[in-house]
């Protein structure tokens, strides 16, 4: 019997809380493997994972690649610039082709929201959404949550503030779904032009003032500000953005003393976060990368029929 409710991971919106907990627990066991000298187990030998990337990404793709390899799966990468996508093949046809070659899991990164869901409806293998437009990026949120759990133990009543371009952030959306399901109190803050309409209906507090949003925060998730948004006229300048929303030591005073700072990367140092914070002991940005591999190993394992791992803690 499958451990998870769905054999896809399309977004955290539809994942029940107990499945999130299962994934995080399993990831913890996977992290032990990564920390060994010989980082390889035979668990997924004979399984094939295909990463299908329609957007540039190095860290997410590499993370999935390594996650598969550490579990002994065969991993193959397809990127839109080198495949028949360039010749005009549709997403559905490409996915069916990959499936016909024997893929057990397709990991999809795509610029259009809903792409992973469309894919899942058209193939029988498992689909993992590695980011679809500004919709969801569930594995990023899971690794953020895994990191938070490592530092803060429990999500109940935990104050998590997400800072930045919430409107265009799939990371923010997935984090909101996941964190609120496990009982965290989530706030979002950013300029009014970068806040999505009616986001408060997701059960989050919405701020435009950073100090207010950071008051008493246990965790700050700092989002990357994409420079192209400035060119689209969504905020006047990086200078003003940084002045209003840049995370520095002074700003952190509003948060709890032991606040944890995370960032999905890659960082614009000096814009949304300054180095004195990014490189401080309060930040767990490199830890997140390690945890990303662990979480993706856990997902690959569980989606291909792996049993629940009982953890000691």
């Amino acid at each position, binding site marked *: 019997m499958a451990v998870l409710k769905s054999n896809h991971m399309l977004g955290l919106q539809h994942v029940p809380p107990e499945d999130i907990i299962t994934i995080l627990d399993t990831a913890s066991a996977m992290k032990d493997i990564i920390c060994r000298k010989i980082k390889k187990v035979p668990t997924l030998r004979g399984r094939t994972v295909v990463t299908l990337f329609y957007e540039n990404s190095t860290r997410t793709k590499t993370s999935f690649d390594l996650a598969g390899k550490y579990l002994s799966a065969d991993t193959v990468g397809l990127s839109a610039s080198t495949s028949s996508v360039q010749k005009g093949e*549709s997403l559905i046809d490409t996915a069916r082709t990959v499936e016909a070659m024997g893929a057990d899991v397709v990991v999809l990164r795509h*610029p259009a*929201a*809903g*792409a992973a*869901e*469309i894919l899942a409806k058209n193939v029988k293998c498992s689909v993992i959404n590695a980011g679809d437009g500004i919709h969801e990026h569930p594995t990023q949120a899971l690794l953020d949550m895994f990191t938070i759990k490592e530092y803060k133990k429990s999500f109940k009543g935990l104050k998590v503030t997400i800072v930045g371009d919430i409107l265009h952030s799939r990371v923010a959306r997935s984090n909101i779904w996941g964190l609120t399901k496990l009982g965290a109190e989530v706030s979002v803050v950013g300029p009014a032009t970068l806040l*999505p309409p009616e986001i408060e*209906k997701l059960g989050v507090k919405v701020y435009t003032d950073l100090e207010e949003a950071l008051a008493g925060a246990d965790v700050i998730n700092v989002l990357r500000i994409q420079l192209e948004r400035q060119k689209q006229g969504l905020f006047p300048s990086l200078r003003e953005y940084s002045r209003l929303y840049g995370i520095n030591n002074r700003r952190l005073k509003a948060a709890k003393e032991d606040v944890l700072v995370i960032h999905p990367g890659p960082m614009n140092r000096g814009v949304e976060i300054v180095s004195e914070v990014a490189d401080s002991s309060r930040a767990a940005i490199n830890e997140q990368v390690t945890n990303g591999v662990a979480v993706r190993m856990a997902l690959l394992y569980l989606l291909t029929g792996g049993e629940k791992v009982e953890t000691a803690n």
Partner: protein
Amino acid sequence: MKLLIKGGSAVFPEEMKVKKVDILVENGVITGIGPGLEAAGARVIEADGKYVCPGLIDMHVHLREPGFEHKESIATGTRAAARGGFTAVACMPNTKPVADNAAVVRFILERAAAEGVVNVYPIAAITKGSKGEEITEMADLKEAGAVAVSDDGLPVQDAGVMRRAMQYAAMLQLPVIPHCENKSLAADGVMHEGFQSTVLGLPGIPAAAEEVMVARDIILAENTGCHVHIAHISTAGSVELVRQAKKKGVKVTCEVTPHHFTLTHEMVNGYNTNTKVNPPLRTREDVEAVKEGLADGTIDVIATDHAPHTVEEKNVEYQYAPFGLVGLETAVGLVFTELVETGVLTVPQAIAKLTINPARVLAVPGGRLDVGERADITIIDPQAGEIINPDDFASKGRNTPFTGRRLKGLPVMTVVNGKIVMEDRRLTV
């Protein structure tokens, strides 16, 4: 050929009345209306319990020909109309080439005469190539047979161009049919901007994108004296703007589509691209406001914005799919199920919005049952039910968001120029 339609409830939308009378049709013309008519040699059509209406007119249809015959043609689009109970359609100019010159308008009329099975009224472009820059030769277009000008799908952004177009169209007594959408506000939006777009991560089209243009075009209508008929109104704010303008006496009319009085943006959940339409499906409050507008007469016309696309074009990522859905073959059922059955509109009110009102906007024949009128007649059975299955469509388009929905109240006969083109839900041509 003689037809005697007996025992039906004839709908007279001008008088807002339903009367039990028989109707006699001879040589394509209505020659008798009254109780107990007899006619030797006539084919008798029993219409007990059915509504006998003036032929329905859909004033907002994309027939796609010339240029996009893979989506629809005049032959198939008019058959879809006939199956949907429409005896006339007005077709939008966003073809390839654009209907911005008399030759294209004449081509459409010739094709319609040769291959069409309902009456076709071409609507011409407001600007050359629908580029929003220079106004078209509207006098020439009118002479060729265009009944209105529109920028549907490619809205005129420049207020100065729109004002001149309205001045010029007013001179020729041509109605202007704006597709109200401010492109800088709509940007790359693909659905209504609101909670659903936030959750789905799809770029939103705010209600304001429509409303600022409705406001602009009402002001320009007042300023130029042009008759402006606002296409496919979709927001509560737009309905209110039109309501106020009408109170002030501005020459403005408007239409709504069946999908905008039936569906909300929640339908987009699951990324079904057959819910992708412009203007987008709005909120429950907007749907209610639109129904109020229909009931109080603010909204004059029900039109489908029938916009066929191929399965391949639609079976892609939501953001990449074209806007538009087919509507001709589901419209009457939705009007009866969603508006009549629920008491929003009476039968004559509903029928007026599908007959006399669009006929008046476009100044085209039809819209009334009267001796001497062309025999365009639609018979609707309010008890007939059907579950929508796109495979039954006569249209080439299968892009409906209504698949599987149960309708009650369906057209069972369409008579065009005295000839039966649809009977018992099946085409006879």
